[in-house]
């Protein structure tokens, strides 16, 4: 209930005029560029692991030539968007929650209100915009890196024919799949941002440092769980015919 109220306020703040530009740019850079090293490292290993695991599974019933299909479908449709969202929930979301909770317990939010500045407009709206716009880009980036890693592992380590692999990926992955991945990115980005801002904003002054820890913890867990559950519904909606 309280969460819905927060969502309504944040929504109004988000769409009543453009967000403060400097804040938006700062958060967008932090969320986007700041996540790149972590996301690159994780996607490379997840992509390679996807290939290795799929090979191990398929070789048991002689289907190792279908690796391209599996890596295309499993990776681009499902794994990389969710991974980008969960990683960003753990990094960006936790940072958002910690910084907002910190402002809340050191009374900076109240100070803003006293100065007749709407904290929703100044603090929450730019963060929401930054993460919502950056996560789809990160998803697209993860798609490319992950697919390259899968390709590398499949051809170099498993000895699958590279031409067959790419042909299968081209067969099964259409432009609409990439678009669906980006759409998932937008949804997850907004969700991660709103959940993290909510938990950060709700921190109480009397809890002190503990409140910051609790807010961070809840932001990470809730955004990860919500993204994974929502992914199931989005996939059912987009792909089941």
């Amino acid at each position, binding site marked *: 209930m309280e969460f819905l109220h927060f969502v309504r306020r944040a929504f109004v703040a988000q769409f009543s005029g453009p967000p403060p530009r400097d804040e938006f740019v700062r958060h967008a850079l932090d969320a986007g560029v700041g996540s790149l090293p*972590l996301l690159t*490292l994780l996607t490379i*290993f997840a992509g390679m*692991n996807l290939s290795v695991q799929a090979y191990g599974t398929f070789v048991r019933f002689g289907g190792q030539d279908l690796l391209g299909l599996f890596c295309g479908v499993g990776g681009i449709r499902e794994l990389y968007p969710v991974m980008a969202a969960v990683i960003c929930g753990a990094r960006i979301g936790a940072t958002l929650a910690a910084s907002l909770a910190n402002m809340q317990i050191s009374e900076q939010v109240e100070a803003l209100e006293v100065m007749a500045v709407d904290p929703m407009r100044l603090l929450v709206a730019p963060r929401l915009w930054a993460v919502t716009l950056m996560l789809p880009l990160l998803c697209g980036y993860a798609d490319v890196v992950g697919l390259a890693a899968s390709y590398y592992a499949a051809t170099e380590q498993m000895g699958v024919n590279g031409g067959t692999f790419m042909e299968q990926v081209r067969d099964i992955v259409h432009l609409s799949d990439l678009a669906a991945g980006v759409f998932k990115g937008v949804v997850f980005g907004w969700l991660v941002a709103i959940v993290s801002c909510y938990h950060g904003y709700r921190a109480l002054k009397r809890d002190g*440092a503990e409140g910051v*820890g609790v807010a961070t913890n809840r932001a990470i867990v809730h955004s*990860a769980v919500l993204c*994974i559950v929502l992914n*199931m519904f989005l996939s059912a909606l987009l792909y089941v015919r």
Partner: protein
Amino acid sequence: MLSRSVRWFEACAAFVEFLCVVLRCLVTGPRYLRETLRVMDLLVRRCLIPVGLAVAPVGAVISLQGAGLFRMFGAESLLSSLLATAIFREYSPALASVMVAAQAGSSIAARIGTMKVRGQIDALAVMSVDPVRYVVVPGLIACVIVTPLLSVLTTLLGLVSGWFFAVPVMGVDHGSFLANLYAQVSLVDLWVGLGKCMAFGTAVGLIAGFLGLRTTGGATGVGKAANDTVTMTIVLILVADYFVSMLLLSLGV
């Protein structure tokens, strides 16, 4: 640049030292069993719902995408083999550990960080209670034991949600689903999964304790410790997972 690498080196050295202290506390007494049980109870209750909610959709998604994929080759009956292998070997251990890292790791780090910031860790030391022994080791043991237990639960949940989306939703035959379910899974897969969980649980407990004890500054430091614990453990889990998969594949298990 130089100061950064010096700081990095210092952190590595501190971690090795921390590791030695933890090892010493593990082999020698006194042991705080009651505290360990309390933390275990807390972790199970805190992690049960997030871990379950995170893994059940994965089984469902594998079924959704896999059914379409296998239907192209008329090999729908193989879907359950894929589901079982993927869940037993890969997703149940990895995802359970990632969620334990997210929930338990960050809350342990935040709790230890809060104690450190408030000076409670120093107070323990003054009372000649070793903080590592009293605060870190129970969390570590709890993580090592709880993660495999949760993984068993998530395996079941993943299979059930996979069945639900394959049989009633996608129209795969119930009989062939069950018949092929365990065709590709051996007992080794189960042990490998549980072993991975114990290893990842150890990593969660160690990193959370280490970063929690190193918290400096005020409330910001607590948030940073919780955040760093989660990102570092997830990196470690995914990287280690890849090497374990490669090792198993080359061993031909």
